[in-house]
């Protein structure tokens, strides 16, 4: 038994023991927190061992009927197991005191957390279709229990749970259909058999398999147009669960696309990947646009997950496109960029959700328009969120900057390689990535600047207090990973390239592209920046008169001290962007002006309401939901409650069937 096998065994054993203990031990939260963190650590070890080359394979035919459980861990799966484990470590440590403070100690919720982590770690290790589907469903059910954990807080949680339950199962059905069609053309349902059969499928069958699984897997990753559940379910879940869902679970959708499309089906044709690229680009822009308009801190983070998964799909689509035209080094570069973005996104999204949870814990609010002024009272949380925001907004020295740089390099060098399709797709993809990067900067400036800086906009924000130590420690773990990824991406690049199946980037301090000329050194850049700050500060200190800084009143135009109501809010910050993208987001504005009774010229009150509905949801989901409701209404008229009528239905159906048989036979 090698290290990877031991690690996976430990994941399952510790996870199940933790779940059992959670059901019986009175002091549940500490046990579950520690147990989840240890489970995560075991998953990190197993994943790292698999990435280092120690893959393993095990078949347990007795556990499941028909084909049994088959597990194997190759580098691709290992990367996702390690990422899931890393998120679980931070979330587990964080959960210890978070759960107590928000009264989430109910038994069901506590049992579901370790089971959720185990299921997520097993999905990338599944080696046949049955195992994959069982673990996938276990993951969906455990996360559903966790999403509705705070159902007492209001009807929104229940609604989010319903959306999630329906959409995750529709996605499951779609994956199921795709894989069943695939298995029908292979001797058995093991991945090895599918891999062998994948090359021999006719293009039509392969296309059906790919599109069906793509729909299912992208719905899990929150890709447009199947994203509607994500900004509902992720914010309503407790924050450590939001982190697990947004940073670890969505990745498994990406894993599914890579596993089925690249590995099992063997690459396929160019149009598959153009479809993936287009879906990714649309999701990236649409997700960040929604986030830029949002004034709910956790919803904003959820929408940013759609954006980041979109960027990952852009990379995967480009990789598939290059591979189908024979450019294997470029394909490896694009896939490396995509997978590095998965790792980076997991780190900063964990950090951001945990920091948002810390804000929620301290103020009871996630509404940016009611926050602000948290810097003096919650310095550590503010620093953590600031670091996460920097990492998320593709600015140096940040985590996403490195992966997006690699992604842009892949797209740019793909222009001469891919023919006319690439010549049209690549510039548009670059423009989409750039617009996404720009909007992400605006979004995270809004989230950090309005949410944490300036003056508190509500009493709750003014009375906030710093979170307990374990919550800060959970954030600290994620923050350290963020910093390491930002400064020394070469530390994880070998692992990511092992998973991507090709080495396209080399170097230690400086990343160099192996096919094209291109180099970037995040570490030197950061050191240069720090040195410049020190030099400038030194010069200014030497040049300026040696008097202490003096505090002074803000310039208030002579109108007395400024109140928090005069500050810009998140809504007003986003207003210019909302106007610019008016045609895309179509906000609903409502202005009520009431006048004085004496004169129409005197305004008594102005009421302004703005809502930015999800337009895709409105156009795509509402007609379907309305049709189902109408169908139900029509059905109700048939069911009048009269037994005679129901017997009559039965009689007519039998008659009809007999006539049909008589005519056709």
């Amino acid at each position: 038994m090698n290290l990877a096998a031991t690690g996976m065994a430990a994941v399952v054993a510790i996870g199940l023991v933790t779940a059992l203990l959670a059901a019986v031990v009175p002091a549940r939260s500490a046990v579950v927190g520690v147990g989840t963190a240890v489970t995560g650590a075991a998953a990190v070890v197993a994943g790292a061992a698999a990435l280092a080359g120690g893959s393993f394979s095990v078949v347990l035919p007795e556990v499941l009927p028909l084909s049994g459980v088959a597990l194997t861990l190759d580098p691709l799966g290992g990367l996702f197991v390690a990422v899931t484990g890393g998120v679980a470590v931070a979330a587990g440590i964080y959960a210890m005191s978070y759960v107590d403070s928000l009264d989430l100690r109910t038994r069901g919720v506590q049992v579901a957390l370790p089971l959720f982590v185990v299921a997520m770690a097993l999905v990338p290790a599944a080696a046949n279709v049955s195992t994959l589907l069982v673990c996938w469903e276990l993951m969906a059910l455990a996360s559903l229990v966790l999403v509705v954990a705070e159902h007492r807080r209001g009807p929104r949680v229940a609604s989010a749970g319903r959306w999630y339950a329906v959409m995750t199962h529709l996605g499951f059905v779609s994956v199921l259909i795709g894989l069943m069609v695939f298995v029908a053309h292979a001797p058995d349902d093991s991945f090895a058999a599918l891999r062998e059969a994948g090359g021999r499928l006719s293009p039509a069958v392969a296309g059906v398999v790919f599109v069906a699984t793509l729909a299912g897997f992208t719905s899990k990753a929150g890709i447009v147009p199947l994203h509607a559940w994500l900004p509902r379910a992720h914010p309503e879940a407790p924050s450590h669960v939001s982190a697990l869902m947004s940073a670890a679970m969505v990745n498994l959708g990406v894993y599914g696309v890579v596993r089925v499309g690249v590995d099992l089906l063997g690459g396929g044709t160019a149009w598959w990947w153009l479809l993936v690229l287009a879906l990714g680009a649309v999701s990236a822009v649409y997700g960040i646009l929604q986030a830029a308009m949002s004034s709910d801190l956790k919803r904003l983070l959820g929408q940013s997950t759609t954006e980041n998964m979109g960027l990952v799909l852009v990379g995967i689509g480009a990789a598939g496109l290059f591979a189908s035209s024979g450019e294997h080094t470029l394909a490896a570069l694009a896939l490396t960029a995509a997978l590095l973005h998965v790792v980076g996104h997991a780190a900063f999204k964990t950090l951001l959700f945990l920091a948002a949870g810390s804000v929620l814990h301290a103020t009871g609010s996630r509404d940016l328009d009611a926050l602000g002024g948290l810097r003096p009272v919650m310095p550590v949380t503010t620093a953590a969120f600031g670091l996460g925001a920097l990492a998320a907004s593709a600015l140096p020295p940040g985590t996403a900057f490195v992966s997006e740089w690699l992604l842009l390099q892949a797209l740019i060098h793909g222009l001469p390689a891919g023919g006319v399709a690439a010549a049209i797709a690549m510039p548009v993809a670059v423009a989409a990535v750039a617009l996404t990067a720009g909007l992400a900067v605006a979004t995270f400036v809004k989230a950090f600047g309005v949410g944490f800086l300036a003056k508190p906009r509500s009493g709750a924000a003014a009375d906030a207090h710093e979170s307990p130590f374990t919550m800060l420690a959970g954030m600290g773990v994620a923050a350290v990973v963020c910093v390491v990824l930002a400064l020394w991406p070469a530390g994880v690049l070998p692992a990511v390239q092992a998973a991507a199946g090709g080495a396209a980037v080399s170097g230690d301090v400086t990343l160099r592209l192996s096919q094209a000329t291109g180099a970037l050194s995040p570490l030197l850049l950061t050191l240069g920046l720090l040195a410049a700050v020190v030099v400038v500060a030194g010069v200014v200190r030497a040049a300026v008169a040696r008097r202490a800084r003096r505090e002074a009143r803000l310039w208030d135009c002579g109108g007395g001290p400024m109140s928090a109501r005069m500050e810009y809010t998140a809504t007003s910050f986003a207003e210019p962007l909302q106007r610019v993208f008016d045609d895309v987001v179509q906000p609903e504005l409502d202005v009520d002006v009431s006048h004085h009774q004496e004169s129409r010229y005197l305004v008594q009150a102005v009421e302004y309401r703005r809502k930015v509905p999800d337009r895709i949801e409105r156009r795509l989901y509402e007609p379907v939901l309305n049709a189902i409701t109408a169908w139900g209404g029509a059905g109700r008229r048939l069911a009048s409650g009269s037994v005679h009528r129901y017997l009559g239905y039965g009689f007519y159906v039998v008659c009809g069937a007999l006539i049909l048989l008589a005519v056709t036979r």
Partner: protein
Amino acid sequence: MSALGVVGGVVQPVLIVAGSPLLVGLMRQVRARLEGRAGAGVAQPWRDLRKLLRKERITPRGTSEVFRFAPLVLVATTLVVAVVVPFVATESAVDPVADLFAVVALLALGAVALALAGLDTGTAFGGMGASREMTILALVEPTLLVAIFALSVRVGSTNLGAIVSSTLHDPARVISPVSLLAAVALIVVIVAETGRIPVDNPSTHLELTMVHEAMVLEYAGPDLALVELASAMRLSVFLGLLANLFAPWGIATEATPLAVLIGVLALVVKVGVLGGLLAAGEVFVAKLRLFRVPELLAGSSLLALLAVAASFFLA
């Protein structure tokens, strides 16, 4: 790290820091003369900076470190760009940072620091400026990156040294449709990024039109001096980039004193001419309404996309 790179890395930041206030002075002087005023002289910005540096440091009550560090970060990002970009010499002191994407992202980082400082003050002006600046930044980004794409296709690299050297060796490329389209797109971007007319008016203090000035309204004394110096440096850096991407002639390719001297003079002349042209253009244009700016930027990103298409289909 070559000798030429080190020379460039030392000469360039000194030149940019010393010269950029003079560039702003020159541009103000050109405007003044065209408008029939005498003008304050080219050295006036330096006199202003000296005055501001002697004043007391004042921090508005209720602001955090973000407000205090933003001017430092703003100057530092521009300084790093001044060190690494090939302005005077073709080789860079820190080659792995002299990447067009990295340079653009560094300049954006400075803008973000200032926007956060604007929000940190908690005044309506600060928030308004930050919001507008970030909107413009978000819309500029696609044009900028696609224009970079168009420029890098022919070289096969986004490394600035590589792009500049390749233009030096093949001057005919400058008048290709790709270069011309990309140049026009980049000029619009630079006008937007440096807050010049018609996107923003650097000399306005009218709340309806302010963008950059609204963010920095609370700064005073030495902090304000840093912000002013940084915005002058950003202007010079952007104009220098434009000059050397499309007309790199005169840039030093070897580390002899004469070559470096010619490189310095060439940069001063090119940036001075571009600045003069920009100032002269500003006399004849009115500032656009804020919500007309996206149309301008959409037009420029279309040009950039055309440039990429041209680089593929006309190659």
